[in-house]
């Protein structure tokens, strides 16, 4: 065990943990941040996706010791019911969930994409979500929701 500083959703935490522990267990069990989900533990399904300095990473595999000073963002840090992020609002508007277990990971992968590319094609959206699996078959709504959010974000930033 050793002390580690983690910055999650703009809050700094100091935690005493084995540095090899995957980030997911620290977020969920030590910090009570439950949106990243355990799906496979193999970086295959994307349910645990969070952003580390803007890059999507699989929290189920990345050791917490490797993330010192990186800014971690989870769905809790995207927006709130009072101030929803355009992606969250778009997922509600498109009713883009069934069981919803994969949705936090989808949102974070989408956020990483839109930060890089504000006008993705559907093909680029599908590409960005290649590492995120959905078992209920909500894919079409998810793609639509991301495109809807992209449009809103472009308008908010005054871009065409």
């Amino acid at each position, binding site marked *: 065990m050793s002390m580690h500083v983690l910055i999650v959703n703009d809050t700094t935490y100091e935690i005493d943990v084995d540095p090899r522990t995957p980030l997911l267990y620290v977020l969920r069990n030590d910090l009570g941040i439950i949106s990243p989900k355990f799906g496979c533990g193999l970086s295959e*399904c994307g349910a645990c996706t969070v952003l580390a300095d803007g890059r999507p990473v699989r929290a189920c595999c990345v050791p917490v010791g490797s993330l010192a000073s990186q800014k971690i963002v989870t769905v809790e840090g995207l927006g709130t019911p009072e101030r929803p992020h355009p992606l*969250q609002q778009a997922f509600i508007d498109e*009713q883009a*969930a069934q069981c*919803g*277990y*994969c949705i936090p990971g989808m949102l974070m992968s989408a956020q990483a994409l839109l930060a890089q590319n504000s006008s993705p094609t559907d093909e680029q959206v599908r590409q960005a979500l290649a590492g995120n699996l959905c*078992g209920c078959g*909500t894919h079409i709504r998810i793609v639509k929701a991301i495109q809807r959010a992209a449009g809103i974000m472009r308008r908010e930033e005054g871009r065409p």
Partner: protein
Amino acid sequence: MTFCISRRSFLQGLSALVVGFRFDGALATELLTPDRSVEQMQKSLDVRQLDAWLAIRQDGQVIVYSGKVELGTGVETALRQIVAEELCVLFESTVLIQGDTQLTPDQGITAGSKTIQVGGAQLRRAAASARQYLLDEGARRMGLDKSMLDTIEGCVIYRGDPSGRYVRYTDLLTGGAFDSPVGESFSIRESKNYRIVGQSVPRVDIPAKVFGQFRYVHDLSVPGMVHGRVIRPPITGASRLDGLKIENLDASELPAGARLIYEGNFVGVVAEQEWVAMQAARALKVTWSYTSTLPNPGDLYDRLRHVAGKPEVLIEYGDVSEHMGQAAHVISAEYRWPFQNHDSIGPSCAIADVRADSATIWSGTQGVYPLRSALADLLRLDREAVHVIYSQASGCYGHNGADDAAGDAALLSKYCGRPVRVQWSRADEHGWNPKGPAMLMQLQGGMNASGDLIAWHFQNWTPTHVTRPNAKAGAASLLAGQLSQGLVVQGPNAGGDRNAVVNYTLVNCRVETHWIDPLDSPLRPSALRGLGAVANTFANESFMDELAWAASVDPLAFRLRYLQDPRGRVVLETVVQQARWTPRSMSRRRWTGELAQGRGVSYVQYENENAYVAVVADVAVSLAGVRINRITVAHDCGLIVNPDGVRNQIEGNVIQATARTLKQEVTFNPTGVTSLEWGAYPVLAFHELPEIDIVLIDQPDQPSVGAGEATSAAVPAAIANAVFDATGLRLRQVPLTRERLTEAMQT
């Protein structure tokens, strides 16, 4: 971290409850039974009583108690719509309490596409009956004749009074309860007056899910909880765990703080930290001896044929043998469907708090009452001493590992004296959950010289599709019971005959099922979305296509010849119009691997009496395999409660059924399941998505029937028929992989 919620914050609103967080039963009973204390009453669970289904709080909130649960299909919203409509209250004033053996009535399992069809009908009846009760009470209170009264937004009003005399529902009930039976006769509102049913009310659970606030069973935590993991034997996923014995158990490498627990062949570890429990599970060295009863993978279908019992004749009319003998053309075909899995992105999870004389279990189970019976048997407690609370898990689409995880947690908690949370690994779920059974279907059809179908013979070989927990099987239905007590999997013959019979009007017909005992199924079989209807309809609708081509008749026209049910004809005619179907004719050219387009049609009436579905698949076939460009669906499930909810279900069915048809096959060898992660057993990826075009046919005057499974049955044959249309190759074994395509091309 332990998530605690104070009683005070709970009382401030039911929003915490909507996101699926639960407490110990006594507190919940006290709080959720409006305006009464636990001492005064026990929450009624008697389905004949209104109080089992409904209560109205003093603040006007209508509490709906449902034994059918939200698995992620949107029924929480739809059931509330039904009650709000029938009771004449605002949708927003309703809240649903689901799946709790101390609070909700026993409605069996949430499965078979029956939540709206059966559970919705029960709630509709209860709400209609409650409205009559309130009208009677209102009439008495206001001194007016009941016929002069109406109900609106939670009030009984006097229609003839322009000043609007009214009395609130809450003022007509003592302590929010009805103390009255569900009436025998009551009027149900006419569908033309509906304001809430038929609307695409947005799903109530989605906001919490996109804000990361929704608490799945995986996200619950109870005070004092430790984390558990179970160490499994070899012969992963086998029905028979024969000759299984622990030869050696070496716990010397167990990390500090981890504890070993075992009973019989059930071996687990617990630890305060989840990561430590995971490492402990890896550090534990177990040597097993066992006998494999699994066939070589290539022998699977022969095995099914050989272990089956005497056939059950499902339907027989005319004289099949005689007319088959007289037929000008006899066509035979055999279709194969593999073992398949559940696609739950989150592996199963459960929490159990087992005490000396009671137990509380939080589970994503599809049936809190059947699971309670199994757990009571496992723990050797009275049924009433076991409290099972449903908490939503990752979408399951059948009997996945949810119940087994509850058994694991219960047994570990019993031995360690602490609440235990068990989280299955991906390999646990892919390997050990019960599998949708492999099936073999044989068809023979006889046609006369003019191409009329004069004889039809269907037979299939299938394990039962139901080995779910129930009172009779008890602990034998749980892996924990099978491993700790040496009990064996069991279940009645069920599900494999679903849609074995076709809804075409045939003159000479015999349909029979050769049942396979669950213990004789190589892998442990149980319910997967659609049960036998998916494989049987794949076979029946592929065969209709084969017959049509043999008769040189367009496959659509051929079906319409034998389809008399007007609602069935409407879905078929609608789907072909939507898809701009043109009569198909055979290309004489042999397919050699070039890109080829094709389209196929398929039709089913689910369970022969429920939803009508017709599907057209447009595919592109090349040496890279089969790609689905577009799936068009026409769908009639009677009265539609929530159109967007139905569309969401149909989309899910199409996408999952596409994966099942093209990609999904549980692989195994004599030492058990080998497809233990998403690479080996994949779901459909984003780049493989078809376009989906759905036409809903609403039937406001027909009862609502399920929409959760029917489409899955119709999709596979539409795809296989389209592949034939494109290439002239008839693929009769699912999944329709590139390898099988190439093999068919070369033979």
